[in-house]
Structure formats: C-alpha cells, structure tokens
C-alpha cells in the first residue's frame, strides 16, 4: 500500500511541476527527481508563500534543466564516436 500512496503523491507533484515551467526537458519529470525534490523541500511545497511559489518552481525548473543538460553532456562524452560504423559492425551469431 505504501507504494501506491507514494506513486499518487508522485503524480500530484508532477502536476505541479508541469504548471510551473514551460519549456521542460523531457527527462525532468522523472519520479526519482520528484522524490529528491520532496526530500529537499521537507514536504512543504504548499507551505511556501503564495507569491514566490511560481518563482520557486521556475528555479526548480532551472535546476532540473541543468541536471538534464549534465546528463546529456555525460552521454555525449561516453557515446561511441563512430556510431554508424560501430552499429553496422556489431553482428552476432544467433544464440538461444
């Protein structure tokens, strides 16, 4: 039951994030990140002042965008360079 509860809360906070910022990178609404945010925020999304709520969300949006950019940079750094040739040459014998 605990899991259900968590995933419902996960949804709520997703809805809120989506309201907050417009051009969101795809990765940012992932549930692990939501989990992290909840922990950071000490469960008090609602508690923050009404006026700066949007600003906070925008900041969070920025933070997540940065995280996403970092991830994509890291992927770029390790991704096989000659992708076309590598993929073409990856041939296996059939197994089980």
């Amino acid at each position, binding site marked *: 039951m605990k899991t259900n509860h968590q995933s419902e809360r996960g949804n709520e906070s997703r809805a809120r994030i989506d309201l907050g910022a417009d051009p969101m990178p795809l990765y940012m609404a992932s549930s692990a990140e939501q989990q992290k945010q909840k922990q950071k925020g000490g469960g008090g999304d609602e508690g923050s002042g009404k006026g700066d709520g949007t600003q906070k969300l925008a900041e969070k949006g920025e933070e997540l965008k940065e995280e996403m950019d970092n991830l994509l940079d890291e*992927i770029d750094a390790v991704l096989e360079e000659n992708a076309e040739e590598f993929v073409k040459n990856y041939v296996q014998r059939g*197994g089980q």
Partner: protein
Amino acid sequence: MAIATIMGTEIEFGITVKNDPDFDPISSCVLIVNAYREDPEGRILWDYDQENPLADARGFQVEGEKYTPNQQENIARNKTLINGARYYVDHAHPEYSGPEVTNARDVVIHEKAGERIVEMSRREANTLLPAGAEMLVYKNNSDRKGNSYGCHENYLMDRRTSFKQVVEPLLPFFATRQIWCGAGKVGSENRSHPCDYQISQRADFFETEVALDTMVKRPIVNTRDEPHADREKYRRLHVIVGDSNMSEYTIYLRNGVTALILSMIEDGAITKPLSLRDPVRAIREVSHDPSLRVKLPMEDGGQRTALEIQKGFLDMVLAYAASRTLDPIQKDVLQKWESVIESLGRNPMELDTKIDWIIKKRMIESYMGRKKLDWSDSQVQMLDLQYHDLRPDKGLYFLLERQGKVERIVTDEEIQYAVYHPPVDTRAYFRGECLRRYPGEVFGVNWDSISFGLGDDSIKRVMMSEPFKGTKQFVESLLDRSKTAAELLENMQS
C-alpha cells in the same frame, strides 16, 4: 499447496572486439571465460552425464545428438564458481547462469553479480589483446540484424501440475508481460513490421506457441524437460521469452511476479483463462505498440489490450494472495507490480526510473530532442546498444544509475558479496562451499551433483536432486568438520 520457490537466470551476452579485423566470436568467448580464474589449476569439469536437453515436457524424447565435449574442451569452456554459478561458453556467446535462489531479491543480487564477473573477466581479457583492440560485452538480446541470444529464467515446479495446465495461462501472460518487463529496442528485425521503437528486445523472434527449440522457430513456452532435480517430484520451467534487463526494479518484478503466477497455477487458482486467439501474433503487436492501445482478439470472442490482460492476472493474484500468507518479498513484489500496472494505465512515462523499456525510451528521446535526431539515426541505435554495455564508466544504464535516475532494489555491497558467496538457502550453498573449500578435490560439477576425485583414482559423485537441501543451516557444521573432501564424504556416511 504450491511448492516453495526456487529460481534462477541464465544470461547470454553479446560480444565484440573493437579494432580487430580478425574478430572471432568463439575464440573471444573462450578468452573471456578463461580470463576469470578462481580455480588456479583450472581443471574442474562440467558434468555432462547429468544433462538431457532433448527431453520434451509433453512426454517424449526428441532425436538429436547430445553435446559432450572432450576433457580439454570441457575445461576451456566451463567455469563453476564459488558463488554457485556457472560461467561458460555457449555457442558464440559468454553465458552466466546464476545459482539457484529462493526469492526475487536474490535473483537481482546474483544477476547483477554475474554482470560484474563478466565485466571483470572482460577487463582481464583485454590485457591479452593486441594494442588498440578492445573487447566489449553487451547484456542485450539482439544485434538488430536478425540474430538473437537469450535471457532465460528457470523456475522449479511441482511435477504433479500437468504441463497443459502450465501452458494455457502462460501463453497470454508471456505474450503481454513485456509491457512491464521489456528492455526496449530501436527498430525491428526478423521480417517484422518496421517501427521506430518497440517494447521488447526478443518479441520479433517468437514464431510458435509451444516447442522444444531455443535457437530457431523460438516458442513462447519452451518444453525442455530437464529438471536438474528429482524428476519424479519436479519440473523446471525454462522460460526463454524474456529480455535481458538492466534495471534492478524490472528484474525484480520479472522473476517475482512470474513466480507468483506459477504458484497460482500449481494451486489451481487461475479462475479466468484470458486465452488469446493468436499469442504469436499478439507478442509482436504488443511489442510494436508503446502506446499500449492495441486490442488483441481473445479466444472468447472479445478483445483486450495487453494492459487489460495483465490487469486480469493482477486481479487473480490479489485474490489468491488474500487467501494465504505471502512472505515480505512476495508482498513487496505484489505491491510494486500493482502500482506499475496503475501507472501503465495512467501514463507509462511515469515509470521512467523503474522499467527498462521506459527508462531507455526517455533517455533516447531526451537525447534526440537535444541533437535533433530521428529514430533511424545511427547515434540513436548506438544509444540503444550502449544502454546494455557492461563497462561501468561507458554503459549508459550505469551512467543513469550513477546519476540517481533509476530506482535500485539492492545495494552495491550485496552485489559485491554475491560475486564470491553463494546464496545460503539452496543447494547452491553446498556447491559453492565445496568449490571454495576443496577446489583441488572437486572433479566435476552439475546443477544436481558434485563429484570428487580422491587421489586413489576413484570418483565419488554426491547427488543433489533436492534443490532445497544443502543449505547453510544444514551443511555448514558438516563442512566445518571436514578439512578435506575425503573427510566430507566420510562424515556424510557416518
């Protein structure tokens, strides 16, 4: 009453050598498997006497030649490990068969330990290659050119359950469970309809419902009847329909949920057959539809989506669970499965930290968005392949794991421990401990036996036809009392 759970997985890995024009898969396999040395003398045999892969669960023996290598080839192709696993060359792939375990958590731990063992031996093998060449290993199931290699699950079952009872519910269950345990694949192959991205690595390769084959005309339900245990009491369900998963969460559900379904079959608790009119067609159609909308014709004349069929199985398991006591891991598996099924109904992308095909799809789409790529781009195909790369610094799954983008089930410490230690609650404990304590006296090993050479030319084989015996609880003091294998055999008789 359903029997207690015993299960395990066997993984065939893809292998290649970069910058080597003379790359040969078989010699590369021999090289990598032999680069892993626990037994310094390297002379323990795999005991092929005990094998019978041509027995069919429908009650007949298929004609064909049984593979029995000579002694030298046997040693070169087989390593039996102190954690109870077998690491070997299977055709043109390195294969890791984990030890028998009793629960889904231990499946994750030992499957992940296997990845580390293969990675350690890959690094070791690389030191023997010419400068510039690099061996690479992938835990996936296809080269995207029509060649597939497997990830097989094994489950011990009660032989009193007829094979027919097993097959009927498993066909729709296996055709559709990919929606929560597929590993995801860019494009299609094996004369399947073209697509951008599909749910399963393996679905394109299933061509028949029920058969003994594993390498051609692959069946959704495999009939190999080789229990590796007392064949009067047990059968072993050999599941070849699954994908090689990277995500711990996905592995956990794949084995945990399947084991629950099998217990339910043994207890006669399948109340709705949920039979598909054409399971072979369904498995491909489901895989090719990440939107989960496709309606599948049912035997009863109606139509259901894959999710509706899985929801049907979930409802049966929930009703079944209400009438018995599940252990804490089974309960956790069931709760997680229930919440995954709910998420799939709302928005599958909610599962982008849990389920492989969704984690991978999110990663690829994010990258495509930044680089303005489309699905046919070779970089996109590379992302797919490299998600399964076993190198901790280059594998994209491991990159996501480091960045906290995937949910874990077990800890790094547990995985590392399992590299050198067998599970304590199955016969794998006895096997692994004998290999650790008496390596010089072990002559040959199979899943259900271990034989010792005692120096006087006699070979003594200890049968282990009961997978629940040989646990730490029952044999540790016997092993502690026995300084040599000869003493062990003496103490066993007294």
